[in-house]
């Protein structure tokens, strides 16, 4: 099943007359902070409502998967790609779970997806607090910052991989897959990782294009 979803998705993109579109800047309202707080609450509630598993079991399972990939692929770069692909497949399926379980408000624009991913999805699925930063002036890029990362709980990168392996790259794939299912084709990549000695984890998300012609909302006009 590995390649099939991607092919089908591309087929459906062409049907939809995908359009290159420059997103308009987000309205910077004073209510942004209040909005973030409300979203955090939604995320926390969804987390509490959900069925939970021991995060250490998840860390060990994920660690065993990464170890397997390191054995199966010669170069850390290939491991990064595989992790991204695994995450992409997860994201394609996770998004329906998110829509059915989270009670998050609908995502009216690409820029709005930032807070929803950071405040609701990270909290709900990983139990961590994340925030949005470094939003590009045209709203087409943003960063998600988070300090604690349950996947990397017990991990330590061996010297030879410190500059090449992005241990938690699966998260980038999840974001890419999930956003693609709601019509935003994006790139997502790690910029900083605490495992590499950085002071926080940072994932950069950039819009490639919107997959469906959408009616602009009042804020965007």
């Amino acid at each position, binding site marked *: 099943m590995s390649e099939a*979803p991607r092919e089908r998705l591309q087929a459906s993109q062409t049907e939809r007359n995908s359009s290159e579109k420059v997103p308009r800047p987000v309205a910077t309202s004073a209510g942004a902070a209040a909005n973030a707080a409300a979203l955090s609450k939604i995320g926390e509630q969804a987390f509490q409502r959900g069925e939970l598993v021991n995060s250490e079991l998840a860390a060990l399972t994920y660690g065993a998967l990464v170890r397997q990939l390191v054995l199966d692929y010669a170069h850390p770069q290939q491991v990064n790609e595989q992790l991204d692909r695994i995450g992409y497949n997860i994201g394609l*399926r996770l*998004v*329906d*779970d998110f*829509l059915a379980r989270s009670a998050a408000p609908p*995502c009216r624009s690409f820029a709005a997806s930032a807070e929803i991913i950071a405040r609701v999805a990270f909290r709900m699925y990983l139990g961590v607090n994340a925030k949005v930063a470094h939003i590009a002036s045209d709203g087409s890029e943003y960063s998600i910052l988070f300090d604690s990362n349950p996947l990397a709980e017990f991990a330590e990168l061996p010297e030879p991989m410190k500059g090449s392996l992005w241990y938690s790259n699966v998260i980038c794939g999840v974001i890419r897959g999930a956003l693609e*299912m709601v*019509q935003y084709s994006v790139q997502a990549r790690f910029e900083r990782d605490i495992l590499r000695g950085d002071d926080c984890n940072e994932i950069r998300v950039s819009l490639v294009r919107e997959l469906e012609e959408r009616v602009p909302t009042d804020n965007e006009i």
Partner: protein
Amino acid sequence: MPIYLVFVVNRSGGLIYHAQFHGAQVHPLNECLRLASTLHGIQQISRQVSPVENADDIGLVGLEARTFRLRVYQPPTGVQFVVLATPDMPDEVLLGILRRLHLLYADYALKNPFYVQDMPIRCRLFDIHFAKLMKPHIVGPLE
């Protein structure tokens, strides 16, 4: 006030799950496939002609007739959940059923590694939970 028929239609208009219950005119599979794809077409058209500038809540939500009520629920991923019931069935009950169905789809289809996205749902656990969900609302299974 029973439910006659349930469809799950994928984002390309393909029928991936269907169930028909007693009391309804029985549609052969081919006809179901055609109905699903027609419904998908109407959904697309209704989105295009929508005069209201609201990007998420446009599109077909239902059809009412003297003899039946059709309710559609389409999350932003494009998959459609459709139910056909007697006209006295309250809208919030039908919507509730469709939202539960979405959750079953997210759990018992999408979290099954042997299920391929957008393909017909042939998962035993999905069938079992679907039957539980429908039980209070049907007269008796037809198939």
